[in-house]
């Protein structure tokens, strides 16, 4: 192989707030090759893309374009070098038309004005490539999600890229659209474009790509041709790390009566789900990001409109219609985005701990300040939150903020805890404390539903794990069958020989 890579990263590293996200990663994108980038949630894929597109600067290592090492790659230099990224979150403006969105930032100009005729002509050409036959003046907001994804791809093609990075392009595409994309990618490969293709659908990767780089915990675990590799082999390369003594010892729950049971549950992305939640166990919810995990928790919590054929919640026979009703039934919810959804950053730690009480107490009864202080002190002691409780919550570290978000539910002692990724962005020490706390809750007979993007957490902490895919439960894995391989395989639809539950 004497081909010169269009862009190559050599030994790049990057960390955020002292957490290494990428360590000594090398990747080379060659013209006329479809290169797959694989890895679990949080393996560092997005960071690597951001380094290649100049959105982030590496802490160490170098990036070379056409063999020339650049001291510092800026986004505009990357664009000029022909690197185009199709992001996972769509970056389109819904009020603008298809053509305007495609040309945005690179409008052809005439006498200082936008040359709409040229724009329309060029936009029509790229739309034909991706099979967009809609009227080009349609506002993007009127298009279904899959078509918007195609507009996003057309927008990248409009700039005639030499390197095209596609971050999970098919997650919202129909089979037909995915087929069009496949043909397009073959054509681009023929034309000598370098393509970096990120997907969680292994079958697709096996079919489409020539070469693969696998990331695990920010390190490259494989960098090879896809010839002679099977799906199971790829899964093995992506998972499997040493859990160490991070997790408390798992002991089976003794007597686990069902406390919540839903059948035919639908909410948001979710379609027709059956689920039993039992006292004394931690039920894990796994899967790739955005497969309906959050809708499940919010639907059970009464925060999103939901429906069910049958529902039994802690003795009542219907779904809670509002958060207050859910609280009254003994449900509590700890959100994933604690800054936006969980905490009041400008208020004090003690105040945040009291909020659920303020929510359901009778509105005009006088507050018992001394009692509040006493309770806050007990909660802080119990969760080892140190120091002054009159400080604003935003002064705390992520781990301590998460403890406050948990602590505020303790006074009402809810029997059902819904936790959405409670250890995201939390340091190892606090993680351990949270794990111990959760196991203790389970031993006390509470029911815990733990949605997590951290696979080891699901394997080592949970009694059962429901793996979600495309708004349904792809597989319910019992504790004796739990393994990272099993979860990842179920999440990606690469079903092993034993059949799914």
């Amino acid at each position, binding site marked *: 192989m004497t081909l010169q890579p269009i862009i190559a990263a050599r030994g790049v590293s990057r960390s955020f707030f002292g957490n290494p996200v990428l360590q000594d990663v090398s990747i080379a994108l060659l013209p006329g090759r479809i290169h797959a980038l694989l890895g679990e949630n949080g393996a560092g894929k997005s960071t690597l893309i951001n380094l290649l597109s100049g959105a982030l600067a590496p802490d160490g290592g170098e990036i070379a374009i056409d063999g020339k090492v650049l001291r510092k790659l800026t986004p505009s230099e990357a664009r000029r070098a022909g690197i185009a990224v199709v992001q996972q979150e769509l970056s389109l403006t819904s009020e603008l038309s298809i053509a305007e969105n495609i040309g945005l930032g690179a409008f052809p100009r005439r006498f200082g004005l936008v040359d709409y005729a040229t724009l329309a002509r060029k936009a029509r050409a790229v739309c034909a490539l991706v099979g967009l036959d809609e009227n080009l003046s349609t506002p993007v907001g009127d298009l279904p999600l899959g078509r918007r994804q195609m507009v996003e791809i057309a927008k990248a093609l409009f700039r005639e890229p030499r390197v095209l990075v596609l971050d999970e392009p098919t997650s919202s595409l129909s089979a037909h659209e995915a087929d069009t994309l496949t043909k397009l990618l073959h054509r681009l490969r023929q034309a000598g474009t370098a393509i970096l293709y990120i997907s969680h659908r292994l079958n697709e990767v096996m079919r489409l790509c020539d070469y693969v780089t696998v990331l695990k915990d920010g390190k490259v675990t494989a960098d090879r041709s896809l010839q002679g590799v099977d799906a199971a082999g790829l899964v093995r390369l992506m998972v499997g790390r040493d859990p160490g003594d991070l997790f408390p010892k798992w002991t089976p729950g003794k007597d686990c009566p069902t406390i919540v049971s839903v059948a035919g549950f639908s909410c948001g992305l979710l379609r027709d789900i059956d689920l039993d939640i039992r006292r004394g166990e931690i039920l894990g919810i796994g899967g790739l990001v955005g497969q309906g995990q959050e809708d499940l928790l919010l639907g059970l919590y009464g925060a999103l409109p939901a429906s069910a054929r049958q529902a039994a919640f802690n003795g009542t026979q219907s779904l809670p219609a509002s958060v207050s009703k859910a609280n009254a039934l003994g449900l509590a*919810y700890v959100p994933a985005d604690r800054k936006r959804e969980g905490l009041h950053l400008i208020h004090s730690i003690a105040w945040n701990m*009291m909020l659920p009480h303020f929510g359901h107490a009778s509105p005009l009864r006088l507050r018992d300040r001394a009692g509040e*202080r006493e309770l806050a002190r007990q909660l802080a002691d119990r969760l080892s939150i140190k120091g*002054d409780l009159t400080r604003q919550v935003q002064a705390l570290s992520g781990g301590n903020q998460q403890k406050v978000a948990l602590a505020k539910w303790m006074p009402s002692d809810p029997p059902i805890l819904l936790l959405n990724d409670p250890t995201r962005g939390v340091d190892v020490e606090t993680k351990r404390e949270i794990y111990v706390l959760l196991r203790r809750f389970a031993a006390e007979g509470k029911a815990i539903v733990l949605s997590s993007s951290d696979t080891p957490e699901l394997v080592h902490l949970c009694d059962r794990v429901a793996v979600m895919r495309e708004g349904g439960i792809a597989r319910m894995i019992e504790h004796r069958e739990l393994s990272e391989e099993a979860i990842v395989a179920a999440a990606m639809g690469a079903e092993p020989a034993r059949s799914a539950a």
Partner: protein
Amino acid sequence: MNGTEDTRFPRWRAASLLRNRAFLTVLIVALVWIVAAFAKPGFGSYGHLRYLLELAAVIGLVAIGQTYVVIAGGIDLSVGAIVTVSAVGVPLVALSGDSSGAFAVIAILAAATGIGLLNGLGVAYLRIHPMIMTLAMATFLQGVLILIAGGTAISAQNPLLAWLGNARIIGIPAGVILWTIVSAAALAVLHATPFGARLFALGANPLASALSGVNVQRTTMAVYAVSGLTAGLAGVLVLGMNGQGYVGIGDPYLLASIAAVVLGGTSILGGSGSYAGTIPGAILLVTITALITVVNASAGWRSILFGSLILLLLLLSGRESQRR
């Protein structure tokens, strides 16, 4: 045990007063009064200061509701119109059997609360932006008032109002006493009840409040209803002091109420502040107006000063938003 209490909840220190916006506003008011009293004889006389407080009482009453709404993350642009509704409405609902005039006052206060409730309904359930909702309400009310009252002033023959506007109890105007009592209640509700805590929750982070079990819609309705009620109360007081109501009588109180809230250190972004700052804020506003009258400057200067003051303070709270 006392040691842990102190590390968890540090003892109150006098130095923290200097970072308290409410206290700083009180200082400014005191300073202005002292300087003005030396510069202009008569400014500092008891009679004049009493008169200033009487004027401040109206602004202060309107600003109770405005403080609540702003802390809860909204704004109420209909308070001026509600003051007018109340001042024009009381004479209109006068009944022959109602010799004390209490019935008319209660009916109008109920109506004002109802208008506030409608504002809350629009903001909470129809998800109309508070500015648009309350501005539309103000415009609507203005139209109704013109149809009903026209351009004429309507005199009130209401014994209760006459008393409220003119009586002195041990030398203190009844209006100021009313303001004191309602203020004490407003402060207690804001800082010592779960309802008050919900307002701070709502203004700081409505999403987290909802997920913590706070009924966001009902609280929003309640807060606009309170704003309607206090604006109505202010209208009743204005009518008592003036003797007659006319269309436009409440207009000056809209901007004044917002200025008093902002002067008192309540964040216009919601979530933090106190009515304790709004009280000196209202007094500061009438003091500045009086000063300008005393030095015989044009009324134009008053508007220029108010406008600059509000802009300056909003710039300061804009800087605050970057820290969030």
